[in-house]
């Protein structure tokens, strides 16, 4: 993975929150959603995904429960808590400001005086 994508790794939490904002999902589902949504540009290492999920669970941003999949397999489903939903809002607005700022800089047309 290249360095510019490393930069985005810190945003894993916000992506997980976003993934779960559609509804409860198991870890594999989260990984698949991120992969397909980013058109496989962001290949999140699964071994990084799970510690993040568990950490967020311990911080009460998400909640977990065991349930059966459509294939009748037991899987651990995560869903957003109220606190997680608020967190998502905050993180999204921070990200927007950040990306707008960075984007302004790198697309700047005004030469430094």
């Amino acid at each position: 993975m290249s360095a510019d994508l490393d930069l985005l790794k810190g945003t894993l939490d916000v992506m997980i929150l976003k993934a779960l904002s559609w509804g409860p999902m198991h870890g594999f589902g989260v990984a698949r959603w991120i992969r397909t949504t980013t058109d496989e540009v962001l290949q999140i290492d699964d071994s990084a995904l799970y510690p993040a999920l568990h950490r967020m669970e311990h911080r009460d941003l998400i909640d977990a429960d065991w349930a059966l999949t459509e294939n009748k397999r037991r899987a651990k489903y995560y869903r957003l808590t109220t606190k997680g939903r608020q967190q998502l809002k905050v993180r999204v607005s921070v990200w927007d400001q950040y990306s707008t700022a960075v984007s302004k800089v790198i697309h700047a047309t005004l030469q430094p005086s």
Partner: protein
Amino acid sequence: MPDSAKWYRYLRFWRPNVAADVDDELAFHIDARTEELSRFGMERAAARAQALREFGDVERTRVTLRVMDEHHASVAQRLRFAADLSRDVRVACRALARTPGFVAVVGLTFALGIGVTSAIYSVVDTYMFRPLPGAHGAALVVLGRTDKDIPQPHDLSYADARDFRADTAVFADLAIYTTRIIELNTDRGAERLWVDEATANYFRVLGLPAYLGRTFLAGEDEGVMSHPTIVLTYKAWKARFAGDSSVVGRVVRVNEHPVTVIGVMPPAFHGIRPLVDIDGVVCINQVWPATVDLDNRASIGLSVFALLRHGVSLSRASEALRLDARRLERAYPATNKNVTVVAVPERYSRPSIAISSLTPALAAVFMTLVILVLLVACANVASLLLARVVVRSRELAIRAAIGASQWRLVRQILVECCVLAFVGGVGAVGVAYAAVRGLNSIHLATDIPMRWGVELDWRVILFSGVATLAAALITGIAPAAAARRRNLNDLLKSSGGNSPLGAQQRLRSMLVVGQIAVSVVVLVAAGLFARSSANASRMTLGFRSDHLLMMSTALRPQTHDNTSGRQFYDELVRRVTAVPGVRSAGIAEFVPFGYNLDVATVFPIASSVNVPANGFSYFTNVVSSEYFAAMGIPFLSGRAFAARDDENSPRVVIVNDALAKTLWPGEPAVGKRLHLDSANGSIVEIVGVVRGMQDLLPGETPRPYVFQHFGQVYRSDMTLLVHTTQQPTSLAAPVRAIVTGLDATAPVFDVRTMEDHLRNGPAFLFTRLGSAFSAVFGVLALVLASIGVYGVVSYSVAQRTREIGLRVALGARLTSVLRLVVGQGMKLAWIGTGAGVLLSLATTGVLSSILFGVAPRDPLVLAGVIASLMLIAGVACLVPAWRATRIDPLIAIRSE
């Protein structure tokens, strides 16, 4: 996935299983991805390999997740526990707040039970368990000499002690000391100080450094008055020198001779003797006048404490001391025949090595009483709580029905007990504090600076805490067990008060029987102590204890020689006798049951008994001719001392009948002669025989005694004994005025009546304290037991309200209702008392060694205890019985 991990997934049915969950989650991920990839047409094995590759390091992730989750689970569990506990505490507090009366009774029971026991523990702790200050405080032993004449361990001679110290195979170090009075000459006049006069290693053996300045250096006890130095105690430094630290190095005047203050000791140091609070320490024979006889082995009067060499056991030391004593006996047969020395750990030598053999027994008895009372209190609280659980049984059953687990119900009850115990514990500290204050206000009749400060320190608080916790747990067990056995069906089916709760009632009855039995034992002990104490104070001592005023003075050798001193005392007696209200007045060197005594060596002449080579050692006293009249000691034959028995006439003595019978059995002793002090010492003639008296221990058989005449043997320190016709204290002021009128510098001290001296002096203080303590215990046990009986009976009345109401409605007479209720309670009282009597008959034998004139199975005490318990139990039953008779049958039956 490792198959071995599968079995413990089932653990999830009981509790969260972190490891299995992590395994399952990761397995699901790999499987799902494999599935997805094979759906895209990948071959299965390749798909799995691809899935694993995409995942990264599965094993590391697994470990990371497990660690994270386990940590989180344990934190969460602790938080949950704390939350549950605080909810339980809140619920318990709310429930208890609804029944303030119950809380008050339980809290009071706990507070009294634990508070009083803590206070008693403080006393035992202060005087028995707490080691002396200093690094070696806990390891010290004291030595005591025993011989044929005085079998109780007592002081040694300096020479003997020095020889024992030389046995370096046994002792790492050994200090020798005696306690004496010195006068500190200040601008305010002479101040009497009590000091230990000791070998220079005194503080080294104790392992205690100075607070200011230094302690003695090796060799500072050598020679006579060549190192006049003093180390002050903290108390003396504060009181006499206002805590001025420049006092170190200052030269002060002691007995009109210069002495250098070299140091001040820390506040914890009070001297070696447990009850005396000394002012300082000086070295042997370094302060004028030098009085310790370093070489005479017959001159006993020195106390010894020592540090055993590392690894030497007490029994090995005792054996070595025995051999050393035998060696000294061979070397000095004249003085050391039959002399043995015993070593006792310092802590078991209190309050005095003479009665050290009794001390552990006394401590054990008190501690047993403490524990018994605590048990009674616990039984009471358990019984009260049990009743409460029974009353609340429906509530508990309903809570169980709506899903509360048994453990939660039990925990709720245990938490309730702990809250109660906490309330009681706080009260207990208050009660203990008050009790200790009360104990500290006990007055001791002596001007010896006594250390009577019972301290309530952290050890006692800790003891209270442990006792409280133990009490909570013990009392929690019974109600918790009762709650566990609740059967919902039985309870809900049963209607109200008539539920079949026989098991609980039986348990409560057993508790009450048990506590009555224990109370009987405590009361019997209290009764025995009380009788023993009464006996001791009523005991015929052989001398007058009423209408007798005592006053001591000490003439300073620098102002009075023998002639002027004798003139002083003669004039004093003459003037005091002339005071209106005085019958007679005499003087004596020692008073009975005092702190000092002296021994004379006697060699009878023309005696039929076999005289040992080193003669007989008998107590002796120097008295004036009026002493016997003032003390009320009757003459059996012969005459009193007379004015003509002076320094120029032949020496005469008066002996008691015990001596006469021992040395001249069947013969008149008057006119017989004896050598005093040594086989060829001065010859004295017996001119009178008086009746024997008790002198050292209450209840003892009078010991042989020799009285010498003040007119022939001068002493500078004497005690005036005044027999009065009126209240003796009313003459204290005029008599004191006579002393100071004769010599303004003469100190007057120990002004007290003989009654006061006996009651509060060393003779009876411990017996009195013992009986006071056990009386408190007895009353406490009685109160607690009556609360127990009352609780059971009144609860049973409440349970049987309907039945009693029916009986009354059907025409039962009041007396039969009374009999019904009282009979039930009294049955318990009788069973408990019977068991208690058997128990005390079996156990109080251990008290026999510490009782005066009363047998451990004294029928009077037993009868008194039975009667008082029955009376109290009867009253405790009558109150609820009276309430039962007032039950209105209509209300009782309708109340369902």
